[in-house]
């Protein structure tokens, strides 16, 4: 009796299984994702050791924008069956989508578990192509096609290999009406920063498969990046309305909604998009810097922008991040360029002193020129390197300073050969590798400039414009093998930074010693120790830097000159803490060195202009020095920050106008001052003076 019941129970269970997995799949196909999810959940509860069900459930999560949960389920499946090939493939695909170098490892394991799993070859081909390793990409795609001659991703990768080198490709016709294949080509154009071609292929994808919502979304995002907002919104809303609501789609739509809070300023050559709450303050500084950079680059690159350059400045870093979603190797970046469109953080979006906005602007504008000159045919390493080079070319104290992570990378010999440096950006193998790669690429351009002359950099830009690979460009333009270039470059690095790398431990110990000596009020010891070690690592200007310690010790000893000298070194080397720089300026001003004080404060306008005290002090210094135009700009900046003391602020601006001989504007400002405080005597006196009544 019990046996019969058991058999009946087993049969019922099998029937339920059949119904459940079929139903889960059917609901999924019908677009009832919640229903399918519930079915999978029930299945897993009933069959907790079934790895296959977990994999299918994971694939559902992966498709429905939850890669974290998908990866968890693939991991659970592998805990049950370490050879579950589809779970390994799923992990490889997720890693690949996030530009994680583990993708290759998972793909290889998937192939060991199932040598016929051609999709694993496709994952490896895609990763290789993203690394610009075109040979490997072709080989892997070839392997996939041997297993399945119809393999779509492999076909698209083969096509991309030709198209990226500006050749017609027979593989394109093999894609036929399968939109997903064109979408892959578009994606590869996009990560190579060839946005117009990406747009063309996303459109082809949609034309072949109109309900390919991923392509609608990607097209919308790419159009948004290119500032084609109306078209972008149409595509994104279409995807959204058809239940394709992944984070990039939703966040991009939200970002576009936020544009109502922005104001746009147009000139014949520029479009400036600033948040209304800081537009008045930032515009004069940003507009002037954009125009200065354009004039410099036009001359240097011998190229005139054929379209206006658009700059968007985001005070909310979250908004800026939406602009960069899905792009490889850009974690923690401050600006991004899409041809002639630049998006960047506002200085107000970062803690004071942590961000040099003008340096970032010049960096991004170099990209804009290089992308336009090369028709987007430039490897990542070179365009980044040139941009980093330009930051310090315009001003030595701009750009990034040498950070401990880079010192460690040099010490541990982690700098990459020039032939493969792009991997450091695209598929970093350790957390700081992108930052290290920026440094290395910048230094490579410095090295080229110093050895072959600045003009050689432009020659290289033009060589890349002809789709020449990096290895060939090095050979043709520098007349040496890439390996020889690497050797000379490392010698250059050693010459410049060998002392810092070798002395880093001593410097660290020295700073600790100074800290203790400071606590013990042994100021002579602090100064002596500081002088001894500051040459070991001159670039360190962050918290706990040697310059601060020494200057503080000097002040404790009432030795102002000593403090001024030390803070002067801090400022010259690129120290950016606003409080420290303002302290330096005050010491200079008190010592009667007003011109230098003004120059010190001027640097802060490029770092953190959202500082009312800065503008007030700089304005006063400018007037004292007879620099009325700067005085007007600075006192206007105070007003643009909506000061508490309106009367004094308008009065100062009136003084500046009066000094410039612009009495009508001086009178207007005096009236505004007195409107806020009718009994403000200095403004009353000034109003009488500019009204011609001073003698009455």
């Amino acid at each position, binding site marked *: 009796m019990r046996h019969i019941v058991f058999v009946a129970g087993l049969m019922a269970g099998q029937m339920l299984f059949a119904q459940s997995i079929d139903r889960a799949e059917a609901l999924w196909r019908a677009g009832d994702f919640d229903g399918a999810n519930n079915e999978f959940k029930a299945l897993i509860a009933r069959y907790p050791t079934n790895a296959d069900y977990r994999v299918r459930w994971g694939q559902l999560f992966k498709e429905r924008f939850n890669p974290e949960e998908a990866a968890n389920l693939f991991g659970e499946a592998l805990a049950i069956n370490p050879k579950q090939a589809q779970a390994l493939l799923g992990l490889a695909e997720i890693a690949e989508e996030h530009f994680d170098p583990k993708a290759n490892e998972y793909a290889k394991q998937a192939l060991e578990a199932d040598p016929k799993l051609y999709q694993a070859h496709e994952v490896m081909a895609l990763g290789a192509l993203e690394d610009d390793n075109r040979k490997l990409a072709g080989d892997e795609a070839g392997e996939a096609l041997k297993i399945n001659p119809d393999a779509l991703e492999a076909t698209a990768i083969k096509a991309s290999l030709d198209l990226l080198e500006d050749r017609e490709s027979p593989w394109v016709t093999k894609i036929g009406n399968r939109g997903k294949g064109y979408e892959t080509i578009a994606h590869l154009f996009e990560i190579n920063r060839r946005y117009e071609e990406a747009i063309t292929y996303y459109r082809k994808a949609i034309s072949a498969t109109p309900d390919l919502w991923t392509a609608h979304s990607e097209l919308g995002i790419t159009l948004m990046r290119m500032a084609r907002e109306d078209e972008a919104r149409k595509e994104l809303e279409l995807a959204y309305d058809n239940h394709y609501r992944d984070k990039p789609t939703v966040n991009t739509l939200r970002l576009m909604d936020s544009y109502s809070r922005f104001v746009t300023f147009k000139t014949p050559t520029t479009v400036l998009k600033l948040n209304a709450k800081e537009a008045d303050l930032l515009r004069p500084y940003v507009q002037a810097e954009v125009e200065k950079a354009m004039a410099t680059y036009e001359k240097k690159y011998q190229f005139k922008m054929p379209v206006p350059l658009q700059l968007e400045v985001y005070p909310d870093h979250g908004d800026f991040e939406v602009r960069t979603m899905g792009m490889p190797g850009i974690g923690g970046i401050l600006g991004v360029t899409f041809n002639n469109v630049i998006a960047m953080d506002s200085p107000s979006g*970062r*803690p*004071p002193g942590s961000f040099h906005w003008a340096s970032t602007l010049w960096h991004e504008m170099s990209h804009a020129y290089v992308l336009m000159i090369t028709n987007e045919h430039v490897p990542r390493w070179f365009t980044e390197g040139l941009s980093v080079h330009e930051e310090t070319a315009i001003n030595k104290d701009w750009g990034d300073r040498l950070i401990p992570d880079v010192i460690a990378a040099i010490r541990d010999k982690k700098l990459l050969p020039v032939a493969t440096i792009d991997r450091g950006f695209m598929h970093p193998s350790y957390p700081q590798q992108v930052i290290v790669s920026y440094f290395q690429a910048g230094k490579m351009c410095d090295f080229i400039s110093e050895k072959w002359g600045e003009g050689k950099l432009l020659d290289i830009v033009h060589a890349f414009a002809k789709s020449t690979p990096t290895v060939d460009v090095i050979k043709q333009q520098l007349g040496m093998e890439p390996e020889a270039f690497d050797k000379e470059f490392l010698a250059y690095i050693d010459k410049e930074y060998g002392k810092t790398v070798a002395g880093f431990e001593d410097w660290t110990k020295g700073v600790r010693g100074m800290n203790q000596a400071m606590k013990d009020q042994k100021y002579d010891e602090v100064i002596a120790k500081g002088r001894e070690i500051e040459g070991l690592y001159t670039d360190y200007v962050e918290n706990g830097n040697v310059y601060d310690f020494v200057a503080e010790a000097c002040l404790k000893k009432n030795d102002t000159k000593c403090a001024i000298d030390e803070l002067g070194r801090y400022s010259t080397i690129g120290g950016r803490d606003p409080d420290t720089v303002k302290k330096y300026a005050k010491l200079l001003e008190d010592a009667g060195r007003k011109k230098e004080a003004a120059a010190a404060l001027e640097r802060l306008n490029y770092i953190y202009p*959202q500082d009312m005290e800065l503008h007030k002090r700089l304005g006063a210094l400018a007037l004292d020095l007879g620099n009325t135009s700067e005085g007007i700009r600075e006192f206007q900046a105070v007003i643009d920050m909506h*000061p*508490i*003391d*309106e*009367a*004094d602020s308008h009065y100062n601006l009136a003084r500046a106008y009066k000094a410039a001989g612009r009495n009508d504007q001086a*009178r207007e400002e005096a*009236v505004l001052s*007195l*409107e*806020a*405080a*009718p*009994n*403000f*005597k200095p*403004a*009353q*006196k000034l*109003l*009488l003076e500019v*009204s011609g*009544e001073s003698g*009455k």
Partner: protein
Amino acid sequence: MGCSLKPFWLALILAANASAASYFLTVAGLGGEPDYEQRFSMLASDVDKILRTGPQNDKYVETLKGADATKVKMEAALNKIASQAKPEDAFVLMMIGHGTFDGTDYKFNLPGPDISGTELANLLNKIQAGRQLVVDMTSASGAVASVLKKENRTVITATRSGTEKNAVVFSRFWVEAMRDAAADVDKNEIVSALEAFQYAERKTADFYKEQKRLATEHPQVDDQQRASAFPLLRYGSASAVINDPAKKALVAKKEDLENRIDALKYQKSLMAPADYTKQLTALLLELSRVQAEIDK
């Protein structure tokens, strides 16, 4: 706000000033750790120094800090003021430090026993001074606002409720307002309680914005109009001029112009901008001429 009312209130203040005295009690409570201890004492010392600047004949200043800032001494100081202050006088209590709120009672943390909001209210209610200002610059101080509320008393707190429990920065900027001429936005050489509050409130908000931190304090003032009429600090020669009989006619003319300017500003939104500016400029020019005559 309150622009059109200011000359009227100012006149009242200045008229009262002739015979009235101002009582100031500043208390820096328990820091709990050396850094806060030092910071609170330093702020109290700064306030003390600012208040003791200038003529002292109408000013009574007492400051409790460090080990002296006990409940017993604070009660004694308040009782002493209660025994001396008259209805025409002004009284200012400034509290710097940590406060707590358990959902029922607010307490100002002092060395030894704390003082509760109710105890404080009872002590303050004994003081006869007709104009009172309490500036409670502690964490959780928002909880005490309703307890201290009284018709002739302006209450300023560093937080909007008892649930804002983190140490505050408002006190730092309140003291800065007492030092910085920029706080006197109408340039009448008097920093009113409202001007000091608005200065410190703005600086507090800017502090959190600049530090990219979520603001954990939201300063409050219970009555802006009353605060605008409360002179926290006077400097310059504004009051001396009023008492000069030789210049009474000019002063009267000046007051008339001030009233006309206020009336015009009140009409601003109803006027064509050019017309408003023209009339305002003419009045301001006239006021400037009169002031120049007074200052001769």
